[in-house]
């Protein structure tokens, strides 16, 4: 992730993050770590309109019988692991994590930052940027 216009940094700040996709099988809507309690989880997920159909089931039993595989939204948690190009004194914190919702249809990403020591519900909004191109292009790599 690259953050631009960071007040205390001379350059854009790049961080490396790792994500968890909520698929109920490997990861559920309940975080279970990073100082996030189930109440915190529900408070954040309910901020996404696309979570509404699942709210009652998740509150009742964690949503263990939900099948999200054909749902056109993908729920994730993103946790930044380290700063790639700056030191930890750049003025940004990576102590918390993001609750994220990706909309497959319009290719937008929304998220809310959670960190007990930071202001709550700081928003993340990402849209696909074509960088002057008239279309959507894809590069690929293949690790051996």
């Amino acid at each position, binding site marked *: 992730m690259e953050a631009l216009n960071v007040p205390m940094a001379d350059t854009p700040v*790049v961080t*490396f993050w*790792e994500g968890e996709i909520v698929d109920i099988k490997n990861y559920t809507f309940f975080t279970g770590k990073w100082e996030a309690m189930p109440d915190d989880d529900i408070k954040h997920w309910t901020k996404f309109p696309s979570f509404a159909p699942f709210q009652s089931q998740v509150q009742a039993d964690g949503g263990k019988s939900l099948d999200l*595989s*054909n749902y*056109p939204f993908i729920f994730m948690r993103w946790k930044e*692991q*380290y700063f*790639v*190009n700056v030191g930890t004194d750049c003025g940004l914190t990576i102590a918390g994590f993001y609750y994220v919702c990706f909309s*497959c*249809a319009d290719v937008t990403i929304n998220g809310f930052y959670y960190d007990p020591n930071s202001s709550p519900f700081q928003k993340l909004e990402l849209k696909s940027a*074509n960088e*002057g*191109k*008239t*279309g*959507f*292009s*894809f*590069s*690929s*790599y*293949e*690790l*051996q």
Partner: protein
Amino acid sequence: PFPSLFPFSSPPYKSFRRRRIRFHAILLPLSIDTTDMPTTASASFTSGADGGPTSLVARLSSGDPDVKLRALREVKNQIIGSKTKKLGYIKLGAVPRVASILSAAIADGDCFQPAPAASPRGMLGYSSNVVVQSAAALGSFACGFDEGVQAVLAAGALPLLVRLLDHPDDKVVDVGARSLKMIYQSEFAPKYEILERKSLEFLVSLLNREGENVTELGASIIAHSCRTVEEQKTMLEAGVLKRLVSFLDGSVGQRDASLGSLAAAFRNNAEVITEFMGPHGGKPFNAIFRLTVDSNPKTRLLACQCLIVIRNATDCYVQELGFKRKLVTTLLELLDDPGQVGDECPFVLSSLVEGKEDLHKIALEADAMVKLRNCMDKENVNPRRLRGVLLALADLCSKLESCRSTFLSMKVLKPLTGFLNHKEEDIRIAACTCLKNVTRSVKNLCAGYFMKNEALVNALILLLTDASEEVQVAALGVVSNIVVDFTTHKSMFVAHEGMQQLFCLSKSMVPAVRSNALRALRNMTFLADDKCKEAIYLGMTPSLIANLIRDDELSVKEQALALVRNLVDGSVGSIEQVFADDSIILDAVGSQLQCCPNAEVLLQGIYVLGNIACGNEIHKEAVTCLLFPLAGRGPEPFFVNFLLSSDSRLRLATIWVLINLTLPSPGALKRQERLQNEGVLSIVRSMVNDPCLDVKIRVRTLLTQTEHFGDF
């Protein structure tokens, strides 16, 4: 009559990880000629008051039987435990002379007579003595020494030794069996034709005889030659497996030979295993498992190997966590063995953990990484053991980030970089394999952990010019991972002429080298800037790229197209290059889309078109012309096939092309009209409930863009 143990019917099989077999052709004089003294004997063998080894070899052809017998004994005693001396005597032509002595003694006939009644009990007659000494000498040449085995076989000694199995004196039988066992413990022994009736009967008879060496011989033959499903089934049906299990309570030699032969009979054959062991494993399984705590390290290793073979064939028996942990901890302990057991142990560990995440976790918890790392650090570790350790580490780092992180935290890059310069080719390859798996760590790639390491980058670039193509391919595997462009640390690689080497290797005569070099270039251009892309176009030329797209090898085509895909993902300027030299690259892409049957190649090709279609009007029109070469005649058949492909990836990529062609732009409306008139939009409408979610969403995106042309 004895069953024929000849001819060689198939290349030798090695139970451990396959390696390239180096066959040393040893040319030896087959006739006994005392004047035929090789001139290549090393100086150390010609010293001594009595003439040393040269003279000793000459005495093997002496007319005096006592001199001959003493010479036999002396040769036998000298070579025991010394590969150097064995090789020295082989070069001096000792083996065919010994074989001749044995042959003459057998032909004599007396050696098959019982010893005279007057001779002391246990004493052999002279002929039998010669037989014992010559057979023992041949066995010693073959013992643990492949060159010795080959020399003994080349001297025609095998049938001679087989004859001894029928001798009336047990001592002679024993020495014959022992020597044959030495041969059959080598991969160079000829394949025994288990399926041939007489051969099978003979084999069964060996297993049912008294005498440990004879039964061990039978087991060794099975371990060596039982390879096919039919042979394994024959072992089961002939009752051989039951007999082998009974040896698990026998002597050390019988236990070890039996474990090896059971492993051969079970390998990759779940049917034989379950039919023999029954639903719960029973006595056979317990007997094998018990041996994992035997006092003899070799027995423990062989028992583990046998259980691993069973586990890899079927998960009926070794399922429980306890069993798996036991196997891991036993093998890790055996790593400390200073001898051959410790050398082979890492290969057995690899066969246990390869491709299995659950075992990677168990191994990690058992500190396998630390133990293997410690083996790497030891001074003068022998190449076989080092190779095994590197490959075991590679297996453990193949899947889990936790394993890679643990491994990297042990400061391994420096020693690994050192091994990239090792004089042994196998070690260089193993080091590359280990690095390749470790560099799959996206987390560490992003941090530039590898590309910032100048020594590592330098060593890898050097390997790209290694004399061995296998090493080049192995090095390319590492390079193609570390150049993935998550950050901008490629400058060191470029500065050290890494890119130049990749250009050069993309023109190699060896397909694996070409495709791996292209993969590295492809990865290098992932989200790369225009400067990097220009350098590639300059270094490779449109003509070379087009030729690689048209290459005979599918893997080369695929990587060449993937490289172009990345090259054209960017600015308008980067797309322009595919039109250079009369659009030679674009033509090549089009030709593959029309005629290549391989889905991976087609996928890259269609993404090339999709990326070009993000350019300006000229670019979009070029793609449109490629899809609709003749107005009013409908789209190219390949295009319709992609839309209707059973492969959702192809359907999706094709829809993206259409999305890009119909996005609002000056010529978009005209293209949309064409899609409508050529029947493409109606095909797309039929995909509105595509079973693949991604395709369904993008079809709806496309139809929304083109909604002037009908309902959906």
